[in-house]
C-alpha cells in the first residue's frame, strides 16, 4: 500500500501493465519525451524505451486507427487522447470500427485496446478542455466505458481495462488527478468492470454518480446527514456495460433517486439511468427522479463554477426528493 494521487495511480497502473506484459504499449501526443501534458505517462519512455512509449503525429484518427490494427495483430495498445474534447476526429474509428469489428467479423477479429483520456471541468479549460462526452460512447454498443473516481479504482480498473478482450474508453476525471489521494496496493490487481461501488451507506435517498462528481455527492450527502437525511451514494465506475440490476436494486431500496453528472442534461447518461428505473421500479418510486447535470450549453470558462454541479445543487436535489 502506498498513498498516491489519482494521477500517480494511473501511471502506476500503466507501469504495472507494461512490466507484466510486453505486448502492452503506450502512445499518443506528447506522452513520450514530455510524459503527457498531465504527466500521466511520466517515466514510461525512460523505463520501457521509445518502442513501447512514444509520441505520434497530431492525428487522433491515426492514433485510434493504428491502435485498432495493433490490437487486431496481437498487441495491447493503450493510447492517450490528450483531452477527451479532441477524441472527435477519431470518432469514426471508435464508433464505426473498434466498436463493430468483433460483431461484423463473427468474432474472427477484435480490438482489445484502451483509449485513456482526461475528461470534465474544473481547470478553467473552456469549451474544449472540459467536456464530458461519456454519453456519446455509452450509446455505442461494442465499446466499454469506464470512469474511476479513486486512486485505488484508477489503477485496478485500468489494469482490468487493459486486459479486457474488448475496446475500452477509459475516462479520467482530470479535476481529481491531483486533488484526491488514497491507498493503492503496490502490486498487480484488478477491479472487475461492470460493478458498482457503494461510496456511502444510507436509507433515505440513493445518489448515483461517477468520476469527479463522486466527491461532490459524498460531501452533499454528509451535509444532508447533518439534517437527518441519509443518502446511499453509488459510484457507477463502469458506465457500459452498466450493472443495471444493481442500479434498479439500489433505486428500489430508497424509492428516492438523484442522478448526477457534469455532462449536459439532454441525452446525457442520467436520462438512461432514470429510464432504467422508471421501466423496472416505478412502483417503488416515492418522488420524481431528479437529475443534477451540466446545463444544455457548450462548456463555459469564466463562469465554469456556475455550470458544474456543486454540493449546493446536489444538496438541493437531495432535499427535494427526500421531502417529497
Amino acid at each position, binding site marked *: 500500500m502506498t498513498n498516491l494521487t489519482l494521477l500517480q495511480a494511473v501511471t502506476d497502473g500503466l507501469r504495472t501493465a507494461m512490466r507484466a506484459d510486453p505486448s502492452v*504499449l503506450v502512445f499518443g501526443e506528447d506522452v513520450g519525451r514530455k510524459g503527457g501534458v498531465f504527466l500521466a505517462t511520466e517515466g514510461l519512455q525512460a523505463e520501457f524505451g521509445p*518502442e513501447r512509449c512514444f509520441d*505520434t*503525429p497530431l*492525428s487522433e*484518427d*491515426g492514433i*485510434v*486507427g*493504428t*491502435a*485498432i*490494427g*495493433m*490490437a*487486431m*495483430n*496481437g*498487441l495491447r*495498445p493503450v493510447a492517450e487522447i490528450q483531452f477527451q474534447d479532441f477524441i472527435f*476526429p477519431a470518432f*469514426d*474509428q471508435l464508433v*464505426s*470500427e473498434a466498436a*463493430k*469489428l*468483433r*460483431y*461484423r*467479423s*463473427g*468474432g*474472427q*477479429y*477484435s480490438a482489445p485496446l484502451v483509449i485513456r483520456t482526461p475528461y470534465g471541468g474544473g481547470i478553467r479549460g473552456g469549451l474544449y478542455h472540459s467536456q464530458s462526452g461519456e454519453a456519446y460512447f455509452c450509446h455505442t*454498443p*461494442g465499446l*466499454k466505458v469506464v470512469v474511476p473516481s479513486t486512486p485505488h479504482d484508477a489503477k485496478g480498473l485500468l489494469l482490468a481495462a487493459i486486459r479486457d*478482450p*474488448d475496446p475500452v474508453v477509459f475516462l479520467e476525471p482530470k479535476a481529481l488527478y491531483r486533488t484526491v489521494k488514497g491507498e493503492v496496493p503496490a502490486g498487480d490487481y484488478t477491479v472487475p468492470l*461492470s460493478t458498482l461501488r457503494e461510496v456511502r451507506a444510507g436509507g433515505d435517498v440513493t445518489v448515483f454518480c461517477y468520476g469527479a462528481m463522486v466527491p461532490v455527492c459524498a460531501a452533499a450527502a454528509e451535509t444532508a446527514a447533518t439534517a437527518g437525511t441519509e443518502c446511499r451514494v453509488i459510484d457507477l465506475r463502469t458506465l457500459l*456495460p*452498466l*450493472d*443495471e*440490476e444493481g442500479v434498479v436494486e439500489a433505486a428500489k431500496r430508497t424509492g428516492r433517486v438523484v442522478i448526477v453528472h457534469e455532462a449536459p442534461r439532454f441525452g446525457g447518461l442520467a436520462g438512461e439511468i432514470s429510464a432504467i428505473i422508471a421501466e423496472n421500479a416505478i412502483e417503488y418510486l416515492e418522488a420524481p427522479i431528479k437529475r443534477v447535470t451540466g446545463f444544455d450549453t457548450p462548456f463555459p470558462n469564466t463562469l465554469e463554477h456556475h455550470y458544474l454541479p456543486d454540493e449546493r445543487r446536489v444538496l438541493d436535489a437531495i432535499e427535494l426528493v427526500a421531502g417529497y
Partner: protein
Amino acid sequence: MTGKEAIEEPLTVIAPDGGVNGHDPGLSPEELRRCYRTMLTVRAFDETCLKLQRSGRIGFSIPNEGVEATQVGAASALRRTDWVFPSYRDFGIALHLGVPLVEMMHNMFGNGLDNARGRQMSVHFTFLDPVHFVSISSPIGTQIPQAVGAAFAARSRGEDTVVLTSFGDGGTSSLGFHSGLNFAGVWKAPVIFLCQNNGWAISCPASEQTASTSYAAKAVAYGLPGVVVDGNDLLAVRAAVVEAVERARAGGGPTLVEVRTYRMGGHSTSDDPRRYVPAEELARWRARDPLARFEKFLAAQGLWTPGEGEAMRAEARRDVAQAARLAERAVSPALETLFTDVYAEVPAHLRAQGRYLFDLAARRGDAVAGGGEFPL
C-alpha cells in the same frame, strides 16, 4: 532541392501484341495459368451475382469487371502469411490467395455459414485463413491506418510480414488516407498502399476528386515512394507490388502504388452508370480488357489457346454456380447471432434483450421480413 518525386509515367509490361520483351514475371507456367484462371472466376462471379441480385436472391453485389488484373497481379506478389486490409472491390485478391468460393457465396447470401453470420451486407467479406483478409467495413478509408497498426505490430515481433491495404481513388480523400500514410511514413511501416484508380467514385470522376496531377504524387506529402502502374496489365501490377513488397520486407518502409484501371460495371448492382458515364469512355476501356490482354501474353508464351480459354471459362462458371447452389441452400443465421460477438462475452443486458425477443416470438409470432431495396 525539391520534394521527393513520384513516378507518374505508368509502368507497363505486356505490349498490345502480348510481348513482354524479355521481362521475367517470376512465375511458373502453372502459376501464370492460375492467375488467368482466377480472373476468369472473378468475372464468372460477377455474372452470377448480377443474375442473383436481379432475381432478388441476393440483395447487392459489387462488380469487379475491369479490375481483375489489378486484384490478381497484386495478390500474386503476397504470401499467405501477409495481411490484407481490403476494400469492397477486392474479391479477386481473396480468391487468388486461396479463399474458397463457397465461403464468399455464404457471405453473398448472408446465411448462417457466413463467417460474419449474415450480419454484414454482401461483399463485406472477412477471412482469417488461409490468409488474414480483414473484415471489410463500408466506411471509406478506415482500413488504411489499421493496416499501418497491424504492420507495426508484425514488425515489433520481428516478423517479415507485410501488409497490403487497398482503396479507391475516392478513398484518397478520406481521413484514413491522410493519417495512415503519414503514420506509415514516420514509422517506416511495412505497408503497401494500393490505390485503385478506376476512374470513378460512384458518379464522381477521378478528375474531380483532387487537383493533384496523380494519386501517386500524394506519396510526396508523406515522404514515400509513389508509382503509377497500368492496372489492366497483370504483370505490370505484379512487378510494382513485388518491388513494394520487397522494399517493405527489407525494412525500407511503405510505398504508394497507384493502379490505373477502370470500373467497367456500375458502382454496384443497384447503380445505373449510364446516368453519368460517357459511353465512349466506357468503350475505350472495354477495348483494353485486362483478360484479353493477359490472353495475348499467355498465347505468346504458348500457354493459351482459344479452346483452352473457353474450357477454363466454362469450368469457372460451373464452380461459381456450384458454390451459389450450396450457399443458397444453407440455413439462415440463428436468432442468437443478434446478440453474440458484440463483446467477447454476452453481457447481462444483452442476455435480457435476447430472452425478451425469444419470449416475444413465442407469444406473438415471428417478425416478418420487409421489402426494402438497397439503392446503392
